[in-house]
């Protein structure tokens, strides 16, 4: 059988890899936000085709390598999504537009997809194992129980956001983490629609027309989400905050691309879809209230309120009109894949929630003037950086000290309000956390080094 991963390592394909590394869309940005959705900074410099196949594990999801692989895979899937600028193309936009969607660039990326899917999703295969004789009755009991347990507890995430010193910033950080999914809401579902697969095809279409607002643009779920972003002072421009997407937020979005793009995963998709639709009403009700309490009357919670209502229908439709008829038609043998989908989306939800909360805690520490190194750092090697130098937001695999010897730099973890460090000031990025750095004014002498072992508190 053809193994594209092995093929990629052949010398004949080196130009393809070099082309990707040097490609315009993947080059670094120069500031905190990106100007257009066709620019997808992805640092492939530390990777080789041979290293792509090393699977991520549950414990390595919050790493720099995970971030790169997840950015890459997300960007590949998103070449299937059309984005247009809000107005006339600028020359730069036109160029970037043609760059990101160029057929040869798309084809080169597509060749990486199977190996990336293996490395990004392999841990799900190992972590989740569905065994035994599942019947429809078992599935019903199991989902009823899972859902009632989910709905019995208030959202820990909402509670944690409420308890921060800056719930507004924390809520915005959360909105940024769902933006990769919600800004193009149901595009994965759209991927599941081409073809001809019997009566359930039309049932999925019914969910889809809700997601797309019946052809009424203000009702389209992505439009509702844009309104929410705008109302809390965030830009609704597609992926302008790309840099702050955590690896697990990208992974969650890509998971639904994966199971809709790979047609043999259809039954898994139906399970995953059911679970996502099922958990939304309970969470969104609480998040909507949180937005109201945090931002007051001016906030537009339409996106979240809409889902409190319609996803009660969607979860019923997913179960009664998709799952049930398919089990009737294809037999109990398709149930384990559905259970896998339910558990995978649940696991990815938990993982991305944890990732978000840790990033939020780090941002809180930064905002409070904390995150200070435990010991002296001034002796560490420093490098001279010109004014305007931008060290892109990146995940640090081990605790790193960022200290200013001379000049001033700003650092941010996604709160969109960078903290300025003056000479003598330093912060520590914990392992697995994301931080970006920008050099202000006349340039700086900067320490950016792993925190020495003995300095750990």
């Amino acid at each position: 059988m053809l193994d594209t991963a092995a093929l990629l390592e052949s010398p004949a394909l080196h130009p393809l890899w070099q082309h990707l590394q040097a490609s315009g869309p993947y080059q670094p940005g120069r500031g905190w936000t990106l100007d257009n959705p066709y620019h997808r900074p992805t640092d492939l410099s530390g990777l080789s085709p041979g290293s792509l196949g090393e699977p991520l594990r549950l414990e390595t999801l919050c790493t720099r390598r995970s971030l790169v692989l997840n950015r890459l895979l997300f960007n590949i899937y998103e070449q299937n999504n059309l984005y247009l600028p809000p107005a006339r193309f600028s020359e730069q936009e036109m160029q970037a537009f043609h760059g990101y969607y160029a057929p040869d660039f798309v084809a080169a990326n597509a060749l990486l997809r199977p190996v990336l899917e293996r490395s990004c999703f392999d841990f799900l295969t190992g972590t989740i194992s569905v065994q035994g004789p599942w019947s429809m009755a078992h599935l019903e009991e199991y989902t009823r129980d899972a859902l009632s347990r989910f709905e019995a507890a208030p959202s820990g995430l909402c509670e944690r956001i409420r308890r921060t010193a800056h719930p507004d910033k924390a809520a915005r950080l959360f909105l940024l983490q769902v933006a990769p999914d919600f800004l193009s809401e149901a595009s994965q579902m759209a991927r599941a629609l081409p073809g001809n697969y019997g009566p359930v095809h039309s049932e999925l279409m019914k969910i889809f027309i809700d997601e797309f607002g019946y052809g009424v643009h203000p009702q389209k779920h992505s439009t509702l989400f844009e309104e929410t972003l705008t109302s809390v002072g965030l830009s609704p421009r597609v992926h302008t905050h790309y840099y702050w997407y955590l690896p697990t937020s990208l992974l969650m979005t890509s998971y639904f691309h994966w199971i809709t793009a790979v047609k043999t995963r259809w039954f898994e998709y139906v399970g995953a879809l059911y679970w996502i639709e099922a958990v939304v009403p309970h969470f969104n009700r609480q998040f909507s209230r949180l937005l109201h309490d945090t931002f007051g009357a001016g906030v537009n919670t339409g996106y979240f309120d809409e889902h409190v209502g319609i996803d009660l229908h969607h979860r019923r439709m997913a179960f009664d009109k998709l799952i049930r008829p398919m089990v009737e038609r294809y037999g109990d043998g398709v149930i384990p894949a559905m259970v896998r989908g339910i558990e995978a989306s649940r696991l990815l939800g938990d993982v991305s929630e944890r990732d978000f909360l840790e990033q939020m805690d780090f941002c809180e520490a930064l905002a409070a003037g904390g995150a200070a190194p435990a010991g002296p750092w001034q002796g560490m090697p420093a490098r001279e950086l010109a004014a305007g130098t931008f060290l892109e937001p990146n995940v640090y695999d081990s605790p790193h000290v960022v200290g200013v010897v001379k000049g001033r730099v700003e650092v941010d973890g996604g709160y969109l309000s960078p903290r300025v460090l003056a000479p003598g000031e330093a912060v520590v990025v914990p392992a697995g956390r994301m931080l970006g750095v920008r050099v202000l004014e006349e340039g700086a002498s900067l320490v950016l080094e792993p925190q020495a072992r003995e300095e750990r508190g």
Partner: protein
Amino acid sequence: MILQMEARHWARQRVAGERYLCLLQEGELVVVLDRCKHRGGPLSLGTYDERTQCVKCPWHDMVNTPRNLEARRMPSVRVGSVMTVVVPEPD
């Protein structure tokens, strides 16, 4: 504007962006706006319950009762097999 359609249970007529449905209610043919009370789904593609005279919408399975349908009725007059309906001007 004036619309003419077949006076028959489940006759459908489309005008500009709007749809109308002729159906039996209490033994009489009436014309209703072909939109579900919930999200405007196409009632004419739903199912009619002869006993209760309700229409179940195909989108989210909500039942539109005679009461709900009453609220969507259009002024109409039937002469033999021809139904004449007064409907809003399409914009």
